[in-house]
């Protein structure tokens, strides 16, 4: 499936590997948390980027300090209603200070992309037919935000304080 990151539709350089499947000889591999915990040393010893895909029930703090050795943390949306990954992304960026790729996978809606972007996701595995135009539009529907988040966007309160026009309606 297509990967959107860095405002472009790109080829995914990672392969998601099932728990019982062998790792690829080379290239990026994403494994489950269970697999990572089981084969940690071997995985980290590979001379290739490694990523972990977390289930919606798995707090990224479970990765411990190893999180900084991961190139990708993929957060799954088992259903679009399950919004736990929004908090996981936030925690990855703030508490854990993770600077690698935070990737949205699974079943999410176009209408969630903006929220995902705000809380620290920077890559999306999107369904076939989901275009870059749609992605950009999703990020632009709301010009202003009320609350601060990891995207560092200026909030309405900050814009007001900066002396932007405050014409009363």
């Amino acid at each position, binding site marked *: 499936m297509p990967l959107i990151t860095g405002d472009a539709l790109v080829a995914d350089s990672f392969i998601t590997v099932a728990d019982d499947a062998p790792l690829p000889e080379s290239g990026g591999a994403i494994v489950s948390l269970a697999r990572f915990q089981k084969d940690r040393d071997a995985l980290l010893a590979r001379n290739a980027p490694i990523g972990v895909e977390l289930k*919606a*029930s798995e*707090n990224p703090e479970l990765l411990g300090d190893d999180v900084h050795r991961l190139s990708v943390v993929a957060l799954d949306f088992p259903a*679009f*209603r*399950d*919004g*736990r990954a*929004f*908090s*996981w992304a*936030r925690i990855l960026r*703030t*508490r854990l200070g993770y600077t690698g790729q935070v990737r949205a996978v699974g079943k999410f*809606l176009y*209408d*969630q992309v*903006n*929220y*995902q972007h*705000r*809380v620290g996701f920077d890559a999306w595995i999107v369904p076939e037919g989901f275009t870059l135009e749609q992605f950009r539009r999703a990020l632009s*529907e*709301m*010009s*202003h*935000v*009320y*609350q*601060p*988040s990891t995207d560092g966007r200026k909030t*309405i*309160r900050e*814009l*007001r304080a900066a002396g*932007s*026009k*405050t*014409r*009363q*309606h």
Partner: protein
Amino acid sequence: MDRPEFEPPHPHMYRYDEFDAQFVAERVEQFRGQVARRLSGELNEDQFKPLRLMNGLYLQLHAYMLRIAVPYGTLASRQMRKLAYIARRYDKGFGHFTTRTNMQFNWIKLVEVPDILSELASVEMHCIQTSGNCVRNVTADHFAGATPDEIEDPRPLAEIIRQWSSLHPEFTFLARKFKIAVIASETDRAAAQWHDMAVQIVRNGKGRAGYKVIAGGGMGRTPYIAHVMSEFVEREDILAYLEAVLRVYNMDSRRDNIHKQRIKILINTVGPEEFRRRVAREFEEIKRAGTLQLPQEELARITAYFAPPAFEKLTDAMPVVSEDGGDADFENWKTSNIHQHRAPGHAIVTISLKEPGKVPGDVSADQMEVIADMMDEFSVGEIRVTHEQNLVLPHVRQRDLPAIHARLKAIGLATPNAGLITDIICCPGLDYCDLANARSIPIAQTIAQRFADLERQHDIGELKIKISGCINACGHHHAGHIGILGVDKKGVEFYQLQLGGSGAEDASIGDIMGPGFGEHEIADAVERVVNQYLKLRNKGERFLDTYRRVGMEPFKNAAYQEQLNAAYNG
């Protein structure tokens, strides 16, 4: 689309600036796009449903229902006129005020909703997050700014919470809905302890104002009263604290059983102490990061919007003569519907939407327009909606009471029953609602008509009846002195009684009495319960007090008297 006449914005409540206005306008366009994608099939119903719910749009039994947010229950006159216009143009000429102080229209068409949202945006109104698994409308004490017993007006904080929670990127797909209330007095007029989270403005030992935060209350299948999360949160920390509570809830709530996904379940499963510990951890970190701190200047800036009107310097002088010659009516109305105002010579007026035989909480477009004019003439252009489905004119002069009463009487809104037994809270029930198991409105009407005699009502005194048509408890039956829950028993509507609930500062969950009563028995059962109270009460005791003293047994015996008689005589 009619262009509304220009009216100056109301000076005593929040006013949108350019940013707020653009936010709401873009939200309308976003929804317009979502509707288009639904009609084209790009979105199926399962995908569209959460999106329309987050704009307050339900599909009910007969039609779409649109729920409009009334933030902290406060409306300006031009907003009331707009609601009247929408009722006429897009609905059947009436609207319904809910137990979360919102407005509902029952006969809406999906294709017209984007236009309705545009109409609402033109008067600084919206339907954002009035449904869905997100933070809902923030409610507050309906006497805010007018009552002498508040520490300060709770609405500035409610407005700050409203902004913070609007399209919050982390908390828009919670496990379930999340309801927040704000109060500022020991007297709880907003049912705070029944909310997912509530803030009470308090003073610490040194007299400094701050916030007591409680969480984990809720109605529904498993009712709970909230636990204290923090006795005192400093003003500047409040958003960081609320965010910490929401984060723990979003992370740790179950997602596998829709009946176990409210925060009340999480807190009572892990225990309040453990929950507080988790909140404290998040709170410390969010506070340290500093981005959510609430500066004093910002609180002051928002508070300034709610600055009270300059009250005329008057002395207390309650008029005794009516304007229309109905002195007895006027006297009765004053007894129940008038409340003390902080400024001498002024009063707070409850407009009861509970005329016996009418639909509780409903108001017609005609009535809304007259009310809007009365708001301008008598109450500085402002009105409040209460969680008990009534309206409140917050700032009237005592000397205007005869005129106010006469005008209300002329439109059928002078029912003198505020807080009395016929002031019933009632959800729409099976007559309208897709989720309901039984009708609720006809039961409310029958009971209200049974007790319509005013002398009898005053003899009974304060007795809050609350009726829900299903276990979702939108009628707040768990908090009723007498609560009634409609159930479906093998295709027949039955009504279960609960006694001893309270939504005030003495919050309690009503006790289930026993097997339900049929549609034609329930009013009799309620009457027997009430008569039992009259027999057993000590001087000065309300129904609730007598129940708490004597327990369920005498009331249960009285209620099932018919069945007992039949058993003995059969």
